[in-house]
C-alpha cells in the first residue's frame, strides 16, 4: 500500500471521478427520457379527455373556453390565466381552423405539422427553438380535433433546469476530479517518480541530476534543486578527497625518498668506511702506529653514524615524546630555537599534560612544530610564546608570535588546494584527536594558533 501510495492516490481520485461522470451522463439521459414521458402522458391525457368532452357535447363547450368558467369543472382552473398556463388546448375543424382555444393557443398553429400523427404525442420545436410536446385527438365523429401542447420550458422548466443543473454539477465535479488527477500526475507523481529514479541510480560523487524540472510543483522543484546541490557538493568533496589522497601519497613518497637519501648519504657511507678500516686493520701486519690510525678512523666513522641515525630518529619520531607533553615541547623549543635562530618561551603549568594520551601528545607536538616553523619561515618572528594550560577539562596549547602575520582565508581547505598543507594539516590532526584549532592572524600583527583538546 505504502509503496504504491502515489498510484493509489491517483486512482482514488480517478475512479470516483470517472464513475461520477458516467453516473451524471446516465442521469442526464434518463432524466431527459423521464421528462419526455411525463410530457407525453400529460399532453395525451389532456387532449384525449378534452376530445371526449367535446364529443359528448356536454354543452360545456362554451363555458369551457370562457375566461371565467363555472367553477364546478376542474378544467377551469386549468384554463384560467391567473394560474399560469403550462399548456394550450385548441379545437380545430377538419380544415385545421381553430374553432375554440384557450388564451395564447395561437402558438398551436405554429406547431402544427401537416403529417402530425393523430392520437400520439410528438416532440417539436417552435421557431425560437423552444421544445414542446404536442398531441392531436379526434373528437369522435364530430369531425373536430382537439390539439393540446405543452411547453417544456413552462411546464417542466424548473424541474428540468434544476435536475439538469444538479447532474451537470455532478458531472463538473467528475471533470474537476479528472483534471485534478491529470495535474497530480503531471506535477507531482511523475516528477517525484523521475526524481526517485535519478536518486536511486545516481553514482554519488560522480553524477549530477537534472537541476530543474519545469513541470513539477515548486516544492518538488526545490527538492530537486537541493538534491542537485548535494550531488554537486559530493562531487566537489570527492575531488578534494582525491587530491588529499594524492597529497598523502606524494608526501609519503617524498618522505621515503628523503629518508633513503639520508640513510644512503650518511650512515651507509660511515658503516662502509668502518668495514674498510676494520679490513685494513686486520690486513696490516705493520707496526702499531698504522693500526691505531685505522682504529681511530673506524671509531670516528662509527661516531658519525650514531649521530646521523640519532638525528634521523629525532626527526621521524622523537623518542623524547615519552617524557610527556611539557618535556617534549621544551625539548622541541630548545632545538628549534637553536636551528631557526629565534627565542622560544615555553610556559607550562606543572602536571598540565598528565594523563594525556600518546596520540594527543603527538598531535599537539606536531602542531607546535609546524606553528613554530611557520612563525620563523613565513612570519619572520624573532620570538615565539608557547603557553600550555588547562581550561577546565580542556588542555589549551597557545602559540603566539609578533611576526608578519597574514590574511587568513575563510576556509583552510582552500589553502590545501593551493598546495599549502600546513594549516589544514594542523587542523586535521587536532580534529583526529577530538580537538580543534583556531588560527588568528592579521597582516602585520602577528599570528596566534590555539589548539584545544579534551584531557580525557
Amino acid at each position, binding site marked *: 500500500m505504502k509503496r504504491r501510495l502515489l498510484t493509489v492516490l491517483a486512482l482514488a481520485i480517478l475512479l470516483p471521478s470517472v464513475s461520477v461522470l458516467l453516473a451524471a451522463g446516465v442521469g442526464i439521459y434518463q432524466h431527459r427520457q423521464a421528462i419526455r414521458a411525463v410530457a407525453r402522458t400529460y399532453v395525451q391525457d389532456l387532449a384525449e379527455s378534452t376530445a371526449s368532452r367535446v364529443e359528448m357535447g356536454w354543452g360545456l363547450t362554451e363555458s369551457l373556453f370562457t375566461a371565467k368558467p363555472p367553477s364546478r369543472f376542474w378544467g377551469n382552473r386549468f384554463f384560467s390565466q391567473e394560474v399560469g398556463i403550462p399548456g394550450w388546448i385548441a379545437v380545430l375543424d377538419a380544415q385545421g381552423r381553430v374553432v375554440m382555444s384557450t388564451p395564447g393557443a395561437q402558438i398551436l398553429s405554429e406547431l402544427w405539422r401537416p403529417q402530425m400523427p393523430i392520437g400520439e404525442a410528438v416532440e417539436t420545436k417552435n421557431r425560437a427553438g423552444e421544445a414542446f410536446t404536442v398531441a392531436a385527438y379526434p373528437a369522435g365523429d364530430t369531425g373536430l380535433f382537439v390539439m393540446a401542447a405543452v411547453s417544456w420550458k413552462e411546464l417542466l422548466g424548473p424541474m428540468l433546469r434544476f435536475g439538469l443543473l444538479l447532474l451537470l454539477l455532478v458531472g463538473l465535479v467528475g471533470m474537476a476530479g479528472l483534471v485534478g488527477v491529470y495535474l497530480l500526475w503531471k506535477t507531482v507523481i511523475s516528477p517525484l517518480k523521475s526524481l526517485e529514479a535519478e536518486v536511486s541510480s545516481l553514482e554519488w560523487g560522480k553524477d549530477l541530476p537534472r537541476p530543474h524540472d519545469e513541470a513539477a510543483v515548486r516544492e518538488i522543484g526545490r527538492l530537486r534543486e537541493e538534491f542537485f546541490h548535494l550531488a554537486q557538493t559530493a562531487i566537489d568533496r570527492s575531488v578534494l578527497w582525491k587530491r588529499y589522497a594524492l597529497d598523502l601519497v606524494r608526501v609519503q613518497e617524498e618522505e621515503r625518498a628523503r629518508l633513503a637519501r639520508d640513510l644512503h648519504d650518511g650512515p651507509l657511507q660511515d658503516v662502509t668506511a668502518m668495514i674498510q678500516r676494520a679490513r685494513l686493520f686486520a690486513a696490516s701486519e705493520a707496526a702499531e702506529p698504522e693500526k691505531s690510525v685505522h682504529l681511530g678512523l673506524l671509531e670516528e666513522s662509527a661516531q658519525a653514524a650514531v649521530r646521523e641515525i640519532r638525528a634521523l630518529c629525532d626527526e621521524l619520531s622523537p623518542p623524547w615524546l615519552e617524557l610527556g607533553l611539557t618535556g*617534549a615541547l621544551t625539548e622541541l623549543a630548545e632545538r628549534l*630555537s637553536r636551528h631557526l635562530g629565534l627565542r622560544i618561551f615555553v610556559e607550562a603549568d606543572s602536571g598540565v599534560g598528565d594523563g594525556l594520551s600518546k596520540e594527543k601528545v603527538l598531535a599537539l607536538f606536531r602542531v607546535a612544530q609546524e606553528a613554530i616553523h611557520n612563525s620563523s619561515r613565513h612570519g619572520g618572528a624573532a620570538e615565539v610564546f608557547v603557553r600550555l594550560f588547562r581550561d577546565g577539562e580542556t588542555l589549551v596549547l597557545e602559540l603566539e608570535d609578533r611576526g608578519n602575520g597574514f590574511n587568513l582565508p575563510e576556509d583552510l581547505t582552500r589553502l590545501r588546494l593551493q598546495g599549502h598543507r600546513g594549516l589544514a594539516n594542523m587542523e586535521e590532526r587536532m580534529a583526529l584527536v577530538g580537538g580543534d584549532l583556531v588560527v588568528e592572524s592579521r597582516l602585520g600583527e602577528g599570528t596566534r594558533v590555539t589548539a584545544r583538546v579534551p584531557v580525557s
Partner: protein
Amino acid sequence: MAIRVFIADDHPMTRAGLVAALQREPDFEIVGEASDGNEAWRIIGETVPDVALIDIRMPGEDGVGLARRIKESGLPVCTLMLTSYDAQQYVMASLRAGAKGYLLKTASPEELARAIKTVAKGGIYLDSEVSRVVGEQEIVPESLSNREREVLILTSKGLSSKETAARLFISERTVQTHLASVYDKLGARNKTEAMLLALKYGVMTLEELLE
C-alpha cells in the same frame, strides 16, 4: 676500596662492552647486571652497589622510573644514566628523578670512568655532548640574589611562571624579570641551560632541586 658498580641495559653487546671497559680498571668492581627494569630493581636491592649505570629505555620499568624508585627507597646508591638519547630533557627528567649524572653510550672509557668516580664521590656528572652548555668555557658567575635563587629552583622543578609567582606571592612579570636576570648571570639561553649551569657552578644543589 673499589667502587661497586651495577649495570642495567637491555642490549647485551652494550653491556658486554661496558663490562669490558670497567674491568680494565682496578678501581671498579662489577657487582651485577640486568637486562630489564624489574630485574635491575631486584638486584640493586640485593647488592646495594655504590653506582648504578642505568639505561633510560628498558623493558619493564624504564630508567627514569627506576632512578626515582631508588631515590625514594633511600638506598645509598648513586644513579648514573647511560643512554643513546641526546635530548636535554632526558637530563632534566633524570636529575629530577634523583639521578646524579647523565652519560651518552658513545662516551669513551676514560669519560665513563671519570663519570662513575665523580658520582661515587657525591658529585654531578653531565655529559658535555648532551649538555653542550656545561662544556662551554668556564665563567665565574655573578652571584644570584635570594629571590633569584628561589625563582630558579621553583622553575627548575617544573613550575610555570604563573605557579612560581603564586608560590612566592609576587607577580608573573617579576618572576620573568628575575629569570631574565638569572639567565644573564649564568650565561644561559633558556630554563634548561639555567638549571644545568646552576648545578655545574654549584649555585643550586641537586638536593634543593629534589626537595
